């Protein structure tokens, strides 16, 4: 085999090896860094790339897609000394392959540790209740701090989420009891308030009723008074009428009325079913006087006109011979 034979074969091999070394196909989603004699020179983007063989070599192959890291579980002591177990996830994306390759030694580990320490500092500054109820705020604060910290590495942290916050079991149990007590308290207060309200309503109803009754009595009293006034007026008129009648007629007629009323009242006493003994006042004796007066009237009447009793009845001021209501004084109820 001649030297030219060997040369030709070696040349072909050399060209093939060189081409393999110089042509780089970078897949979508990755950036490759190129180092010339170990020093970073450029970044290859996805697609077909050529590098200078023998001088350049591929350094790091950086994933440019958004990635998720699990933040491992850790114990955090809150401001009020409760120990809670916390884990989370962080989403980040590399924007500068060169910085992510050479500014930080282990990117994912760095982000993980950074996030863990920041979780401790953010949650350590909050009470347990705040920690449990302000997850969004924790996420937001973590995001701002961690994102600023990873910025020199050409990385952007898009999201940090606290997955689980687990307080110790006895604390959970105590929280459950607290919540139950809270609800029982609310229920008690509500029912007490209902009772109070109902009693107020009832008392108000009673008050209103009494007021209305009093008003009724007042009204009735006013009307009673009016009635009495009216009665007095009527009696006054009646008296006037009687006195007029007496002035015109015989004074003795007056005695008739008194006697008439007296006897009627006496009759009522007698009719009363449970009245067996009737005590008569001393003045009852004057009734006899009245009767004597009646006799005089009768004598006078019959003496003047014995022929016609009807004629006597027609005389003004006199009394009809038979009984009946007195013509001048209408019967009134008090």
């Amino acid at each position, binding site marked *: 085999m*001649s030297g*030219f*034979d060997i*040369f*030709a*074969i070696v*040349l*072909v091999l*050399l*060209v*093939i090896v*060189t*081409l*393999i070394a*110089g*042509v780089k*196909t970078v897949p*979508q*989603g990755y950036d490759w860094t190129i180092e010339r004699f170990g020093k970073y020179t450029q970044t290859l983007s*996805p*697609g*077909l790339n*050529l590098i200078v063989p023998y001088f350049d070599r591929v350094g790091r192959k950086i994933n*440019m*897609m958004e990635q998720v890291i699990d933040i491992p579980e850790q114990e955090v002591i809150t401001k009020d000394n409760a120990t809670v177990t916390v884990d989370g996830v962080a989403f980040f*994306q590399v*924007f*500068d392959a060169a*910085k992510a390759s050479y500014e930080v030694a282990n990117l994912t580990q760095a982000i993980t540790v950074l996030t863990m320490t920041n979780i401790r500092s953010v949650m350590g500054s909050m009470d347990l209740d705040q920690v449990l109820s302000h997850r969004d705020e924790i996420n*937001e604060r973590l*995001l*701002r701090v961690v*994102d*600023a910290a990873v*910025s020199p590495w*050409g*990385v*952007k942290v*898009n*999201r940090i989420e606290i997955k689980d916050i687990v307080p110790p079991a006895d604390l959970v149990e105590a929280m459950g009891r607290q919540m139950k007590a809270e609800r029982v308290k609310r229920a008690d207060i509500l029912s007490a308030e209902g009772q109070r309200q109902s009693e107020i309503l009832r008392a108000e109803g009673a008050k209103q009723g009494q007021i209305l009754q009093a008003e009724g009595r007042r009204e009735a009293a006013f009307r009673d008074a009016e009635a009495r006034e009216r009665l007095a007026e009527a009696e006054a008129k009646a008296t006037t009428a009687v006195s007029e009648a007496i002035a015109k007629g015989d004074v003795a007629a007056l005695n008739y009325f008194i006697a008439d009323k007296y006897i009627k009242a006496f009759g009522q006493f007698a009719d009363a079913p449970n009245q067996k003994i009737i005590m008569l006042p001393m003045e009852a004796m004057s009734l006899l006087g009245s009767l004597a007066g009646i006799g005089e009237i009768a004598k006078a009447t019959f003496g003047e006109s014995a022929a016609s009793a009807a004629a006597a009845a027609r005389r003004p001021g006199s009394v009809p011979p038979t009984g009946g209501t007195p013509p001048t004084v209408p019967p009134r109820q008090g």
Partner: protein
Amino acid sequence: MTDMFISLGTWNWLIFGFILMALEVLAPGVFLFWLGLAALLVGLISFGVAVSWQIQLVMFALFAAAAVPVWRRLARPKPDASASPFLNKRTEALLGREFTLEKPIIDGNGTVRIGDTVWRVAGPDTPAGTKVKVVQVDGANLTVAAA
């Protein structure tokens, strides 16, 4: 085997060329395609001009090496032809878009809220709530100017 190889003569180059091209389809790496092209070219030339196998090998090596600058020239005009030009280039997609400043830019740094995350932006000092436009991107760093 060797006899058959020799008896085939220049056909070997064409066969070799097509095999390389077929391999390129199976295992994409692009350079196999050029080697195949070079082999085909050598085969076609050896049909017309009788050259020794050593010369054929040298020609193959030269054609293969020459394919690289030729490809670079051809490929140069549109290096980024893609249906999704901003794939994995999230910040570049933000170029020219307007956002409301969430925190004021003080000493050149502020924040805007894009999507459900917060981006730190650089630019001239501006009060919060101002509309700003992304004028420059560099990795994860956005530069904004008042819109």
